[in-house]
């Protein structure tokens, strides 16, 4: 039995490596499953009757339509009824007086149960029968499913574990502090999984990146600041007792012509693993788009790494696009990866052509395989941080499947104060590299942090959705040495909080040694919270503080704007894909319903594509 359990587990780890952490609890569970096989053996008389019938039919060659086997009484079931009736009193005795430990578990189970309410309420067998029925015998397995499974060999991909944060009491934790995140890689990666016919592993789903993938129709700053902040408060669509607060940050939009000169060094991974239609050829096409959009004042250099690092073309200005395009054509994939050397070379090139007024940036395009070894990985990070201080940023573009080191790529971009985008299609390349060129390549505010202070009279507890790896300690907010996310020109960032209203009463834990009391301002105030923001002008050392109170103005969900409803649908989808404990009454159908009615103005078709992906994920999840 041990071997079978091992096989079953190893197969599962291929799809969801994070499961390994729970192995100790999974082994007894699988033992239980193996031992607990229901006794559903065939009645021997029935078996013989049917056999005879089939034999007769086979010999005569004429089908008989009226065959119905004899029906037998369910003697086994009757015995089971008796067994359970006898068992019951002993069970009630056993669990009648619960220990403290049991009580705790019951509470946690009750929470898990309520979180899964949607599952229980729905006619759970119904989706099974949504499958198209044919009057003929079913087709033998379609080759489509084979193809999909073959393309989904993703067992070497790596994702950082996401530990979901629960609700925090406002009395005990009045401040919620986090760094902004403008990455969108997770959405494109999730899309790649779904299109290949499988649900993504939960750790590949970063909800804030799903939400931030979409352009929202927010107004930029009216003053000279780099961004404007807007808030909307309404009900949570997956739990109508709770509220949902949307905080939207819209960076100043700068037209392409007004952007300072770009000094871009592309560092391209041309190792053997990039030799795939979804990798190097896609990367080349994406690069062509950038070259086509170059201005005279911009310069581009290309260097590669694979086995050894080398310069393909030294920094070349926009007047000589042809030379850059020709150099690009020469690239071929092959050899193993030596990422660290490549990065050093790229920084050298960027430094040589450094423009103090411009945007100096390395753009690393890879499927994530750096052969740098554990000792040099720390050095690599230090170098990236150092270079960033001298004004050279790092943006990471992820390509291809099967080998994505998602966690490492996000970390590198984070250290390099750039963003991390995942390019799965040429459309995505266009979105990241052309449409959002300003946001992808030009930073308008650095180290952007948010700190929310909630009013305990109106809010009992809160939960920030996503941003798990962007949380900061409360004291980090005022510490200018602590890093946070960057905001690019025209970028928008959205954060959603699920709030449990307090109903105007004080709550929280009574403490023995200190008093936590609400002051008169909180009691008399109509504000549910105050948002504090800190950011630095690019290159500046000191941060600037902004403050904005949020009034207790609750909008009815159906009359909230399209952006709010759409973002809430995306968040709900993320909760479902993560199989979150906090998904409440979330369902794929609800996501679809809300998203369909909140498409609004969608010139690029991103929201329509979202709806298609939700339908696909519903099919895969049910």
């Amino acid at each position, binding site marked *: 039995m041990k071997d079978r359990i091992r096989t*079953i587990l190893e*197969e*599962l780890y291929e*799809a*969801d490596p994070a*499961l390994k952490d729970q192995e100790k*609890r*999974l082994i007894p*569970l*699988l033992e*239980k*499953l193996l031992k*607990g096989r*229901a*006794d559903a053996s*065939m*009645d021997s008389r029935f078996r013989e009757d*049917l*056999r005879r019938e*089939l034999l007769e039919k*086979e010999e005569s060659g004429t089908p008989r339509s009226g065959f*119905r*086997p004899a029906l*037998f009484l*369910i003697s*086994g079931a*009757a*015995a089971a009824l008796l*067994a*359970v009736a*006898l*068992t*019951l009193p002993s*069970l009630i005795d056993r*669990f009648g007086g619960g220990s403290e430990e*049991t009580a705790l*578990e*019951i509470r946690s*189970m009750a929470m898990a149960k309520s979180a*899964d309410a949607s599952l229980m309420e729905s*006619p*759970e067998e119904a*989706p*099974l*029968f949504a*499958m198209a*029925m044919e009057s*003929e*015998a*079913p*087709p*033998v*397995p379609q080759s489509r*499913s084979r193809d999909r*499974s073959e393309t*989904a060999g993703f067992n070497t991909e790596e994702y950082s574990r996401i530990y979901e944060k629960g609700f925090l009491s406002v009395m005990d934790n009045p401040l919620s502090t986090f760094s902004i995140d403008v990455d969108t890689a997770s959405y494109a990666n999730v899309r790649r999984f779904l299109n290949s016919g*499988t*649900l993504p592993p939960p750790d590949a789903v970063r909800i804030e990146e799903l939400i931030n993938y979409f352009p929202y129709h927010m107004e930029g700053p009216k003053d000279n600041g780099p961004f404007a902040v807007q808030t909307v408060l309404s009900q949570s669509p997956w739990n109508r007792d709770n509220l949902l607060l949307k905080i939207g940050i819209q960076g100043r939009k700068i037209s392409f012509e007004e952007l300072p000169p770009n000094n871009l060094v592309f560092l391209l991974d041309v190792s053997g693993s990039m030799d795939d239609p979804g990798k190097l050829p896609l990367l080349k096409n994406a690069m062509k788009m950038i070259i086509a959009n170059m201005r005279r004042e911009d310069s581009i250099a290309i260097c590669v790494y694979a086995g050894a690092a080398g310069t393909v073309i030294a920094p070349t200005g926009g007047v000589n696009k042809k030379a850059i395009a020709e150099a690009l054509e020469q690239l071929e994939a092959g050899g193993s990866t030596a990422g660290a050397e490549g990065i050093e070379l790229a920084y050298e090139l960027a430094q040589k052509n450094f423009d103090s007024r411009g945007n100096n940036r390395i753009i690393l395009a890879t499927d994530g395989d750096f052969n740098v070894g554990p000792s040099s990985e720390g050095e690599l990070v230090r170098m990236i941080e150092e270079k960033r201080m001298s004004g050279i940023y790092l943006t990471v573009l992820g390509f291809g499947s099967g080998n994505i080191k998602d966690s490492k790529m996000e970390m590198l971009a984070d250290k390099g104060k750039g963003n991390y985008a995942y390019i799965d299609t040429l459309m995505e390349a266009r979105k990241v590299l052309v449409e959002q060129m300003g946001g992808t390549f030009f930073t308008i505010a650095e180290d952007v942090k948010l700190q929310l202070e909630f009013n305990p009279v109106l809010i009992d507890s809160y939960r920030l959705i996503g941003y798990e790896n962007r949380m900061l300690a409360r004291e980090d907010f005022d510490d200018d040495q602590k890093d946070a996310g960057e905001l690019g020109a025209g970028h928008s960032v959205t954060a959603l909080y699920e709030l449990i209203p307090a109903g105007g009463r004080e709550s929280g834990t009574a403490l023995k040694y200190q008093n936590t009391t609400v002051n008169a301002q909180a009691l008399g105030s109509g504000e549910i919270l105050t948002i504090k923001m800190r950011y630095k002008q690019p290159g500046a050392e000191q941060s600037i503080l902004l403050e904005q109170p949020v009034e207790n103005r609750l909008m009815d969900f159906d009359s909230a704007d399209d952006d709010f409803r759409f973002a809430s649908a995306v968040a709900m989808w993320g909760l479902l894909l993560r*199989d979150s404990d906090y998904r409440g009454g979330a369902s794929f159908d609800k996501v679809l319903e809300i998203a369909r009615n909140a498409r609004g103005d969608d010139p690029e078709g991103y929201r329509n594509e979202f709806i298609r992906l939700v339908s696909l994920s519903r099919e*895969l999840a049910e």
Partner: protein
Amino acid sequence: MNDNRQFIEIYDEYAEPIYRYIHYKTCQRETAEDLTSQTFLKAMEKWHQFNSARGSLSSWLYGIARNLVTDHYRSRGRWGFISDISDIWDMPASDNVIGEIIGKEEKQELHRALGTLPSRHREIVILRVWEDLPYRDIAAITGKSEANCKMLFSRALKKLKSRLGPVVLCELILARPFFERREL
């Protein structure tokens, strides 16, 4: 192209697993027997159409069974399903009822937890663990990719993990109209 075996040999090999599969899905012996008959009658009728190049024999048979189960519930309407598996899946009869109680408790607890899974997730768990089918066959039967079957199994295990244990059983006893159902 089918192989050269007589159809009755196919029946002898697959009658039990197909019957079990239908029984797990329908939770009723009568229905399972009826649908098993229909499955093999239909398979016999279509036997000349079976093409081993396009998929395995077992997934072809499971596919027929699966569609018949689907059809069965369609004809009964969406709400016609008995959702509590543990009440219906047979327990072997035995004279030594008291002696087997502990084992049965565990089994029933497990079956109840399985019963709370969405049916498609449950189907994958049963096919992989109880029927020992490879993912290739499970993918063919359920019409999903192998990777997705694994992902659904992984999700199902996490759910089972949180739903199994003495506390859950206690909860279930308190939460459900247990006595009434037994008296029926």
